[in-house]
């Protein structure tokens, strides 16, 4: 027979450490059904038939917070065989408050008093025998951190599950017990005896969830309501508060008998740290510094290096092992690039042309007697911008030696370079220790098997690229999760909320929403995953939905392209993109809070600030790994499938009546182009309803930087280059509208996968994507319509519609009131009270 043990306790009581200690690597991590709360269970080490269910960290069993409802629903409905309740011995009073509620459930309880090592070190004493007598259950001493006593605690819990009963020893005051006795008799007497007391107390408290579950007739309800009101009148408080008060009074009385504290007035180390860290004046600067460090390490330092390695190395051409040879290769590559550009300024050549011959080229080049100075157009690979650079024929004047706009190699030197080295581009494999990436290895294998082109394409550009898209994010994510786990475990995360609450609650977000948004400026995928640290579910969902509005690293080349091609390289475009992103987050935060989906008063911000402590390496690493792995598992499929879909539609199409695979520059004949043509009318009101822009937006879903590449193909080929063609296709107004739409609409598939993972619900994922696209559409629509109107090209219907949209937004932002309905609902209890009166 399998024994189910539930592990319950306050947040910060050492529950995670105990759970890890008891189960080791036999853990399963998921979510509680339908909610974003994490669920963990695992097998007890050395016992095949004992399952430990980790409950969310909670302070009470009230019906008001999601974690508490999840925990108590499990306890009531799944009825585990025993509860192992971990309490923090250094904070006994508040921790035992939960214990007094757990012992009433009629499930055997074993209390494990944690941090005994610290208690002994402080010279304090806990009389566990006395405590055990007062609570009516077994009490054991443990130190989860050191691993002492935890096996014994688990054994006691198994023992209790097999043959023990927990009978609560605590009685409430006379009037309360009187009412409870009446409730037991009138309403819950048909229930199993050990469950009656818990239900009766909940009915006394007018607990909305329990009243709903029991479905009591109005007549009976009115009957017991009289008793409840009598007790309330006598004790001059509402029933819920009476119970809470009496529990704490009871705890205070038992603590007197079993807890001896050696009084010291010295500040603890944690107090000293806190004095500095959340100091009135130093608090904010320290916060900025910590955030800067997190951002730098996760996004710039280690993060970028690891992502580049994963994307360009492991899932690209390859990489130099430990960077050996990278520098030499880069130098050689730069020299080659300079030589090419310098030569191009005077002599046009194309080494990919079949007719190209190195010998004739060199001899032709030598014949060129150019002017002393010429120019060449250099294309930036990321943004496709073309910069004019100066090239000198045989001598660079001193004044131009450090000039960025001058190629630091003369034409004559370039000719010599090609004569000596040939026209071949330097191969990274010839420098240092080169490890080929996955695609070249797979490609070589497929070539050996003489695989068909379409199969090669499917495997390389579809599957391998898709897997790369999933795994490419993982290294950076692991670095970030490591930092977040550290901040959470050491206690600073709670202080972030403390420091920032004042600003963020104005937008209906938690102070902890800052981190996802900050991380989102680097990459939205870890940004969305970082939402896990937000404790309130509503805030968490809201932040998941809005984090990707902020321009991420992959959107930067696209922004630069729009700025360069349409706005003459104005730096204000990039700045405005960040402001647009931030404004979108704030506006959405305020508007969404007023919708039905997020209805209800903001959660009370009554939060424990746990003492600072040094986290254990094992816990931090485990948390990092769990989050990274769950991204791969839960987000991987959707990313892979959608990458394959977009690959297929963009590389296949009907040409001259026959369906075939296309080359990269034939995307205009692809299925995707057809699809784009079919849906382009949707974007007509935004001013760019052509299939090119539509297709570019769709390929942006694979990865936002793809928009640049697609635009390059679709707008290339004309005279004057890509930028010129784009500037012909867009006006300033429609260009900015196109930019705004692509910044705000659904993020890339990887981020969508992360949203799905974190939302843990198809409905919420679709709602998030739908909201993002809808919001992006409305904003882009307003930009186009107002922009056209004020530049004299407007159309009156569109303008009117845009005004309506604007008015509606203003109404949502400033006039509409927060709805009062409470999601977890206490309306039933209020009705019942009104009836009885």
């Amino acid at each position, binding site marked *: 027979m399998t024994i189910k043990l539930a592990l319950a306790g306050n947040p910060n009581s050492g529950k995670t450490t105990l759970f890890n200690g008891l189960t080791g690597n036999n853990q399963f991590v998921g979510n509680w059904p339908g909610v974003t709360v994490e669920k963990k269970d695992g097998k007890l080490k050395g016992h095949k038939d004992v399952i430990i269910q980790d409950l969310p960290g909670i*302070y*009470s069993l*009230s019906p*008001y*917070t999601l974690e508490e409802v999840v925990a108590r629903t499990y306890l009531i409905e799944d009825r585990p065989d025993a509860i192992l309740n971990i309490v923090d011995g*250094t*904070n006994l*009073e*508040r921790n035992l*408050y939960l214990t007094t509620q757990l012992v009433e459930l009629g499930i055997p309880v074993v209390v494990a008093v944690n941090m005994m090592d610290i208690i002994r070190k402080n010279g304090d004493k806990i009389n566990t025998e006395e405590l055990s007598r007062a609570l009516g259950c077994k009490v054991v001493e443990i130190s989860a951190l050191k691993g002492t006593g935890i096996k014994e605690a688990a054994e006691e819990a198994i023992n209790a599950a097999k043959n023990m009963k927990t009978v609560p020893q605590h009685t409430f005051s006379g009037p309360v017990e009187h009412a409870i006795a009446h409730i037991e008799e009138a309403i819950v007497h048909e229930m199993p005896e050990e469950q009656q007391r818990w239900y009766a107390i909940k009915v006394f408290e007018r607990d909305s969830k329990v009243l709903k579950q029991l479905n009591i007739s109005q007549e009976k309800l009115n009957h017991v309501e009289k008793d409840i009101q009598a007790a309330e009148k006598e004790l001059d408080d*509402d029933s*819920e*508060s009476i119970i*809470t*008060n009496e529990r*704490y*009074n009871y705890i205070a009385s038992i603590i007197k008998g079993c807890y001896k504290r050696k009084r010291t007035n010295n500040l603890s180390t944690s107090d000293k740290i*806190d004095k500095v860290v*959340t*100091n*009135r*004046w130093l*608090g*904010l600067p320290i916060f900025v510094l910590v955030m800067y460090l997190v951002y730098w390490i996760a996004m710039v330092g280690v993060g970028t290096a690891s992502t580049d390695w994963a994307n360009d190395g492991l899932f690209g051409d390859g990489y130099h092992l430990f960077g050996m040879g990278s520098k030499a290769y880069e130098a050689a590559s730069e020299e080659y690039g300079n030589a090419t550009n310098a030569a191009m300024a005077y002599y046009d050549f194309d080494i990919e042309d079949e007719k190209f011959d190195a010998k004739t080229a060199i001899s032709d080049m030598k014949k060129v007697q150019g002017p002393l100075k010429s120019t060449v157009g250099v294309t930036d690979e990321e943004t496709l911008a073309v910069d004019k650079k100066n090239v000198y024929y045989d001598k660079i004047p001193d004044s131009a030696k450090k000039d960025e706009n001058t190629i630091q190699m003369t034409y004559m030197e370039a000719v010599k370079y090609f004569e000596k080295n040939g026209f071949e581009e330097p191969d990274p494999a010839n420098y240092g220790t080169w490890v080929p990436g996955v695609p070249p290895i797979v490609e070589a294998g497929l070539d050996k098997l003489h695989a068909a082109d379409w199969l090669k394409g499917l495997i390389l550009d579809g599957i391998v690229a898709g897997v790369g898209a999933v795994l490419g994010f993982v290294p950076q994510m692991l670095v970030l999760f490591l930092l977040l786990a550290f901040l959470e475990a050491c206690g600073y995360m*709670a202080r972030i*909320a*403390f*420091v*920032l*609450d*004042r*600003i963020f*609650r104005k937008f209906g977000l938690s102070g902890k929403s800052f981190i996802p948004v900050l991380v989102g400026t680097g990459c939205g995928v870890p940004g969305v995953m970082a939402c896990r640290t937000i404790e309130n579910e509503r805030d968490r969902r809201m932040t998941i939905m809005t984090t990707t509005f902020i321009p991420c690293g992959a959107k930067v080349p696209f922004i630069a392209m729009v700025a360069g091609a349409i706005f003459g390289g104005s730096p204000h475009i990039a700045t405005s993109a960040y402001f647009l992103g931030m404004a979108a987050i704030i506006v959405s935060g305020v508007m969404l809070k007023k919708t039905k989906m997020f209805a209800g*008063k903001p*959660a*009370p*911000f*009554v*939060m*424990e*600030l*746990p*003492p600072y402590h040094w986290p254990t390496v094992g816990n931090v690493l485990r948390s990092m790994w769990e989050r990274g792995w769950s991204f791969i598992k839960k987000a991987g499929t959707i990313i892979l499938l959608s990458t394959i879909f977009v690959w297929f539609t963009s590389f296949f199409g009907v040409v001259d009546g026959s369906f075939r695979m296309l080359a990269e520059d034939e995307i205009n004949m692809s299925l995707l182009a057809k699809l784009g043509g079919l849906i382009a009318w949707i974007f007509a009101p935004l001013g760019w309803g052509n299939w090119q822009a539509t297709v570019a937006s769709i390929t942006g879903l694979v990865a936002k930087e793809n928009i640049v590449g697609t635009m390059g193909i679709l707008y290339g080929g004309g005279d004057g280059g890509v930028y010129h063609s784009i500037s012909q296709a867009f006006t300033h107004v429609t260009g900015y509208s196109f930019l705004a739409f692509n910044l705000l609409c659904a993020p890339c598939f990887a981020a969508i996968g992360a949203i799905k993972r974190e939302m843990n619900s198809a409905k919420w994922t679709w709602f998030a994507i739908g909201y993002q696209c809808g919001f992006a559409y409305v904003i882009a629509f307003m930009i186009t319509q107002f922009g056209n109107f004020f530049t004299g090209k407007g159309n009156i219907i569109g303008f009117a519609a845009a005004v309506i949209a604007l008015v509606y937004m203003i109404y949502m932002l400033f006039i509409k009131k927060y709805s009062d309905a*409470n999601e*977890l609902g*206490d309306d039933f209890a209020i009705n019942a009270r009104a009836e009885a009166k």
Partner: protein
Amino acid sequence: MVLKDVKIGQTVIVKKITGQGPVKRRIMDMGITKGTEVYVRKVAPLGDPIELTIRGYELSIRKADAEMIEVEEI
């Protein structure tokens, strides 16, 4: 007097908690009940919320919610 008006560094005793519903329950669940000693430890850098020491641990609470807690000086 309500808790919101207590100066930093003062210790007071809780007299009554007004209001109802989730916020009141949460405040009480965290241990702010009638007769409890509350030490007002500090205020956040931006002036809200405040940090209390209660029942031997640190709790932060918004000023708006602290208005619901009636206290008296010792």
